[in-house]
C-alpha cells in the first residue's frame, strides 16, 4: 500500500480525473495547461452534484432544515479552505470571491481606497499577472499613487538589490508567490522574508498572489508572513466561479465593504446601511455555494495526496523536463526562468527558434499535447523577456514523464515543419 512518504504516482492519480480518461478521443490527451486551469477529480464533481441533488437552498437566514444544512456545508467549506492555508481564524478570515482577480480587486478597492493617499507608492514586480497589476493601476490613476516595480534578473530571479530604496514611501506590496511564466517561486524559503521585513519597517502591507503557489506547495500564511493571500479555485482542482481572499483579521476588520447588497449588511435604512461582521461583510449577494463545496472537496483531495508530495512530484517532473528538453534541443529551445528545480514550479515557458508560440501550440495540439501560447496575462514580463509570447507547458498531480516525452516529440514535429531551409 502506498503511504504518504512514497512519491505520488500520477498514473494512479489520473484515474480519478474523468476528462483525462475518456476513450472517445482520436488520440490520448496530454494535458499540460494546468497553470491556466486544472482538471477535476470525480470527488469534486460528485460533491457539487450531491449538494445540488440533496441539499441546495440559499444559505444564511434559512430556518428550514435544507437551508440550515446548506449553510452548514458552505461555512464548513470556508473553514476547510482556511485550514488548508493554515489561517489562524479560518471562519472569519476567508472571503469567497469569484476568482483570484476579484480577491485582489477587493483589497485594492477596499484597503487601497481607505488607506492610501496621493503620493503613496505601490510596489509590484515586473513578473506579476495582470490580475495583480491592473487593479493597482486603476487605483493609482484614481488616487494619484506611484507604481514601482521589482525587476527580475536574467536567470529569472527577483532583483532585490534596490529593495530598501523602492520600499521608501511604499504603502502596499503586491507580489506573486510563483510566476505563471517563469515558474520562479518566492516564499518563506526564497526571497519573501526580505520583502516582508522591508515592508514591515516601511509600514507597508503585503498582498501575496498565491494563484500559482497554493495549488502546488504546502501553504502556511503564518510562515509566509503576508497580510493578504489571494488564490483561485479552478487552478487547484476546484470549480470555476470561485476564488479566495485570506486576510489578517485586523486588516479585514479595518476595511470598508467592497460590493454592496444582501448578506453584507446588518441593517439597511433608506438613508444608508450598516455593514455586518467578517467574513460576510465582503460577500455581497448569494455566494458561490456549490463552488465553495466543490473547492472544499478539492482541498480534501489535495490533502489526501499530501501537498509535500505534490510539490516533490512536480519538482521531479520539472527537473526531468529541463534535462530532457535541454538534451534534445540545446540552444534551439529557450526555457525561461530559473534552471534550479528547487527554485521553480512546474511551469515551463518555451521559445523554439523560428517557430511562433501559437504555431508551436497548434502543432502540439495535433499530437494531443495541450499547451498555452500567448502572453499569459503578463505583458510587462513579456516585454522584459523580449518576446511577444511564449508556449507554456505546466504540470500537475496527474502528469507523468511520458507526458514530458510527448511534449518533446511534438516540439520536434513543430521544429521540422517550420524550419526555414
Amino acid at each position: 500500500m502506498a503511504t504518504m512518504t512514497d512519491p505520488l504516482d500520477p498514473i494512479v492519480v489520473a484515474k480519478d480525473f474523468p476528462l483525462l480518461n475518456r476513450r472517445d478521443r482520436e488520440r490520448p490527451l496530454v494535458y499540460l495547461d494546468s497553470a491556466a486551469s486544472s482538471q477535476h477529480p470525480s470527488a469534486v464533481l460528485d460533491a457539487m452534484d450531491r449538494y445540488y441533488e440533496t441539499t441546495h437552498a440559499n444559505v444564511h437566514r434559512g430556518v428550514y432544515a435544507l437551508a440550515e444544512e446548506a449553510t452548514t456545508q458552505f461555512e464548513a467549506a470556508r473553514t476547510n479552505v482556511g485550514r488548508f492555508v493554515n489561517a489562524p481564524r479560518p471562519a472569519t478570515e476567508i472571503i469567497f470571491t469569484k476568482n483570484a482577480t476579484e480577491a485582489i480587486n477587493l483589497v485594492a478597492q477596499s484597503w487601497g481606497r481607505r488607506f492610501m493617499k496621493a503620493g503613496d507608492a505601490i510596489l509590484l514586480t515586473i513578473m506579476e499577472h495582470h490580475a495583480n497589476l491592473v487593479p493597482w493601476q486603476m487605483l493609482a490613476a484614481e488616487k494619484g499613487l506611484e507604481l514601482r516595480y521589482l525587476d527580475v534578473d536574467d536567470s529569472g530571479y527577483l532583483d532585490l538589490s534596490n529593495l530598501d530604496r523602492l520600499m521608501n514611501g511604499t504603502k502596499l506590496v503586491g507580489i506573486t508567490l510563483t510566476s505563471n511564466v517563469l515558474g520562479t517561486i518566492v516564499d518563506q524559503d526564497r526571497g519573501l522574508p526580505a520583502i516582508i521585513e522591508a515592508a514591515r519597517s516601511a509600514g507597508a502591507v503585503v498582498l501575496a498572489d498565491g494563484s500559482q503557489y497554493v495549488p502546488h506547495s504546502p501553504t502556511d500564511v503564518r510562515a509566509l508572513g503576508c497580510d493578504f493571500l489571494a488564490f483561485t479555485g479552478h487552478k487547484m482542482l476546484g470549480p470555476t466561479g470561485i476564488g479566495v481572499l485570506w486576510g489578517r483579521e485586523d486588516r479585514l476588520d479595518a476595511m470598508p465593504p467592497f460590493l454592496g447588497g444582501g448578506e453584507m449588511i446588518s441593517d439597511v435604512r433608506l438613508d444608508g446601511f450598516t455593514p455586518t461582521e467578517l467574513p460576510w461583510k465582503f460577500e455581497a449577494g448569494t455566494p458561490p455555494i456549490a463552488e465553495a463545496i466543490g473547492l472544499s472537496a478539492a482541498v480534501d483531495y489535495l490533502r489526501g495526496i499530501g501537498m509535500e508530495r505534490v510539490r516533490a512530484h512536480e519538482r521531479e517532473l520539472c527537473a526531468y523536463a529541463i534535462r530532457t528538453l535541454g538534451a534534445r534541443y540545446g540552444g534551439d529551445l529557450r526555457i525561461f526562468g530559473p534552471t534550479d528545480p528547487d527554485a521553480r514550479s512546474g511551469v515551463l515557458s518555451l521559445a523554439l527558434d523560428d517557430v511562433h508560440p501559437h504555431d508551436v501550440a497548434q502543432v502540439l495540439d495535433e499530437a494531443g499535447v495541450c499547451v498555452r501560447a500567448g502572453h499569459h496575462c503578463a505583458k510587462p514580463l513579456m516585454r522584459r523577456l523580449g518576446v511577444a509570447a511564449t508556449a507554456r507547458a505546466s504540470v500537475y498531480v496527474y502528469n507523468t514523464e511520458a507526458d514530458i516525452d510527448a511534449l518533446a516529440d511534438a516540439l520536434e514535429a513543430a521544429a521540422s515543419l517550420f524550419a526555414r531551409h
Partner: protein
Amino acid sequence: MAGLEDLYREIILDHYRSPRNRGELPSPPAHRSEGFNPLCGDEVVVHLLVEDGAVADIKIGGQGCSISQSSASLMSAAVKGKPVTQARALIRSFKAMMSIHEASLGNDGDGEGGEAGGTDEDDAAGGTVSIEDMGELAALQGVVKFPVRIKCATLPWNTLAQGLNEAEAGEQA
C-alpha cells in the same frame, strides 16, 4: 433528527404566551440595554435595577420569536433578586449550554457572543451552574439541536451581560 417538541417545550410556550416581568423600569435609577439579532431584526430590551450587588428588579421589552421572548422571560425569572455574581454565573452556564453546537458549525473564531456586546471575558472567569441546577432554563436545552435558533435563545442573555457591565460601571463611576 430533532423534532419540534425538543424546541417548543411546554414551559417555553407558556413563557411565550404569558411572558414574566414584561415592562419597563424608570431609568435612572434602572439601567436600560438593548440587544439586537441581526439575522432577523428582533430585539430584546432589558431594564435592570442593580442594588447592593444584586439584581433588585428586571423588566423585559422588545419583540421577537417564541424562543427569544421565552428565553428572556425565563431569564428574568431566574435572575430577579439574585446576586450579580450569581446572575453572571447563570449567563456563563446558559451560553455554555448553547455553545455545544456552535463549534460544529465551523464558526471557530466567531462565537455568537459578539452582537449584543456579551464579550468573551464574561466567559473566562467565575463559576458556572450545572444544567441540573438551571431549573426551568433547562427547557431551552433543545434549542442547540436547531442551530439557527441558538442566537434567538442567547440574545436576552447577551443583552443582560451587557446591561450588568454597564450598570456596574455606572455604579462605580
